[in-house]
């Protein structure tokens, strides 16, 4: 009797494990939804709107709330990816912490998380130039760029050129 219970429990464990593995594989095969923030420039979308970014049927779709905005991949003249950082703690907490005694709050400012930027230039039906900047989780911009290029978008800087370029571009200090 004990042995039978033992075998049943092992069978159930294996069944659950199998289901879990299947679920995980199914999740991997589905195209991941890219969480993104439309920082600026997307027509009809407020700055810093949070949503998901996908490339389908020759278009870049940004879905936020119940609305969505799209840009034709063929009308995109340039796609550039970049990297930036943001405060790891929330903006309000971070600002409030600035008044903490002995500068202890400033310590929080040292903790930052990396994110990617995806910058696009495209022309509308009147030939007018638009620019859009998205923020995506780290290493989330390059797959979107590849998808866009595959669907007809253009890029002035290829990956090889980007790799050859110096990491930190020189800049001139304005004399004031």
């Amino acid at each position, binding site marked *: 009797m004990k042995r039978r219970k033992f075998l049943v429990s092992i069978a159930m464990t294996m069944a659950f494990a199998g289901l879990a593995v299947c679920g995980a594989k199914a999740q991997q095969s589905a195209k991941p939804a890219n969480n993104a923030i439309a*920082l*600026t*420039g997307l027509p009809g979308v407020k700055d810093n709107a949070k949503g998901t970014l996908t490339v389908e049927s020759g278009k870049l779709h940004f879905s936020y709330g119940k609305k969505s905005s799209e840009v034709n991949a063929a009308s995109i003249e*340039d796609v*550039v990816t*970049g990297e*930036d*950082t*943001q*405060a790891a703690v929330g903006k309000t907490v*971070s*600002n409030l912490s*600035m008044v903490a005694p002995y500068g202890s709050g*400033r310590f929080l*400012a*040292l903790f*930052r998380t990396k994110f990617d*930027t995806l*910058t696009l*230039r495209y*022309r509308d039906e*009147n*030939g*007018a*130039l*638009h*620019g*859009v*900047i998205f923020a995506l989780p780290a290493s989330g911009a390059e797959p979107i760029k590849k998808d866009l290029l595959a669907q007809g978008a253009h890029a002035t800087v290829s990956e090889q050129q980007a790799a050859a370029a110096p990491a930190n*571009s*020189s*800049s*001139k*200090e*304005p*004399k*004031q």
Partner: protein
Amino acid sequence: MKHPLKAILWLAVVAVTFAATPLSAQPVKAKVSAIQVEMIHSDEIKLPAEFQISLYENLVRQLEKQGGFEHVYRDGDRRAKDAADLVVLHSTVRGFKAGSERTRRVTTVAGATSITIHCEFKNADGKVLLEKDVNGKVRFFGGNLRATYDFAKKTARVAHDNFSSSEHKS
């Protein structure tokens, strides 16, 4: 005793004249109904793509908001050809210092981001009507891209102060 009084009187007259001069000689606003914003040029100074786009988008937005023009056209917009009294804004980056938001937050005195842009307002024939260097800065709080917002606001103010459309009352 008579001469010092006379001198003081003359000084007072001269002072009043100089003080009144700016009031009477306020710049006459050129009549312009539309503006076309060209993409920001940064040939000499390498500017990150997101800065260039942010400058352009903020500039268009601020000119629409407070520039006082009937129409604000973007770079390449074909409809601008038919616009009467069109002025074209050319902007070239002259200086850029990418600061650090982290440094600003930690020190509050260092890490400022600043950008200097030479702005030229030209008429349809290419004649320069106005040129000016405009600075955009972010000193204490906010991300580096906030410098582009500062620049855009200042440039829109310059446009507002120097040009007016027939419908706009300044």
